[in-house]
């Protein structure tokens, strides 16, 4: 099956800034929902970051960090394909994912202790 394609720069604009926007505009929460739906169905997604100028830590956390916290890193690595990613965008996404995974591990440890 052909993977679903999302052009972040076109669909979410060059400034990917806010977690939530009013009036049903496409925001980080929207992207997270789209990705989560695909991951649940084990569908592949190709994401292009062409034309993305700004990706704030909040946007990266909401869209990718929370996804990693929910599904873990393996499904994300398997099903998400990143295209046209600048060093800046990669840094933002990797940091957001890493800090959420750390949080997940911490929560698991605390649960074990309890």
């Amino acid at each position, binding site marked *: 099956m052909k993977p679903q394609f999302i052009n972040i720069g076109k669909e979410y*604009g060059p*400034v990917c*800034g*806010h*977690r*939530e*926007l*009013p009036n049903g505009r496409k925001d980080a929460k929207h992207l997270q929902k789209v990705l989560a739906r695909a991951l649940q169905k084990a569908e592949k997604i190709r994401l292009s970051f062409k034309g993305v*100028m*700004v990706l*704030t*830590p*909040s946007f990266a*956390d909401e869209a*990718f*960090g929370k996804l*990693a*916290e929910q599904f873990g*890193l393996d499904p*994300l*690595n398997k099903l*998400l394909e*990143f295209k046209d*990613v600048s060093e*800046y*965008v*990669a*840094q933002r*996404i*990797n*940091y*957001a*994912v*890493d*800090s*959420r*995974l*750390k*949080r997940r591990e911490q929560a698991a440890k605390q649960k074990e202790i309890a």
Partner: protein
Amino acid sequence: MNPKHDVKVHLSGRVDIEPDPSQIFNALKIMLSSGIKHVTIDLTKVEFLYPAAVVLLTQTVVYIHRTRPRKVKFSLIRPEDPKVEDYLSSCGFYYYFGLRRRAGTPRIHPRGEVIRLKRRRCLTPLFSQELVELIKKHQDVSFMVERDLIEAIIELEDNVKRHSESEVGWFVLAQGYPNSNRVRMVIGDLGIGIRSHLSRHPDFEYLADKPSSNAIIQSLQRGVTGALHGEHSGEGLYTIWKFIDACGGSMVILSEDGCVLLKGEDVKIINLDFVFPGTFVVLKVNYASDKIIMRGEEILTHPLLVK
């Protein structure tokens, strides 16, 4: 008339929150004291009212109008200097006092160097776009500075919207200084304040009994957030401060009874003897194109998602 009910606030010279905020803090303290029915703000001798002072005065007036059961009347004595008169009318300050530009005042400030004082309730990239346009009118800025500037403003507005719980939205004002390649922007809200927000989290409950300045300092650390269920990452203020520091700018955060002034390694903490309603942030950005924005190396412990 009871003299206690009728107070006069005199401001003079250059009124700003830094380096010395005592003049503007005294004015706010008088305005916020209880039992007052009429406040006269005398700007006759003011040589310049900086954006920080403009927003602080406006925010306080709006707060008093909203919260005092009996109406408090505000009167403004206009500045003698036509430059100040022109600036205050161009930046939208008079609107909150029901005044208009004095007839015959010459237009001295070039249009396009100020983004008028606005009360915002909705998140849009509008303010950051306006600010970048304002800067680009006078100088080409590097892609990285433009990107980081937009990022800083979006993070700041996002923080205000999500954490402040301000019912009246937030105030923004920006002023460009093209000759020195600097821009000042001010964002203020009438929300619950940083300490009240942070101390909801069990890790920061202890802050509830400490001065607000402790909470402000804490909020600048990476990963610190008052959100209880991991909704937020706590990256906002940290990212903003990193950017401001890297471009040689400065930042002031005022929240409830604490004020922190940050410039490079210098941290000045002021504990106020009155409580300011809400939170107020001033960013001074140096956008000179030869500045290089350095980012710290992230220490990641998990395999990279994006290679």
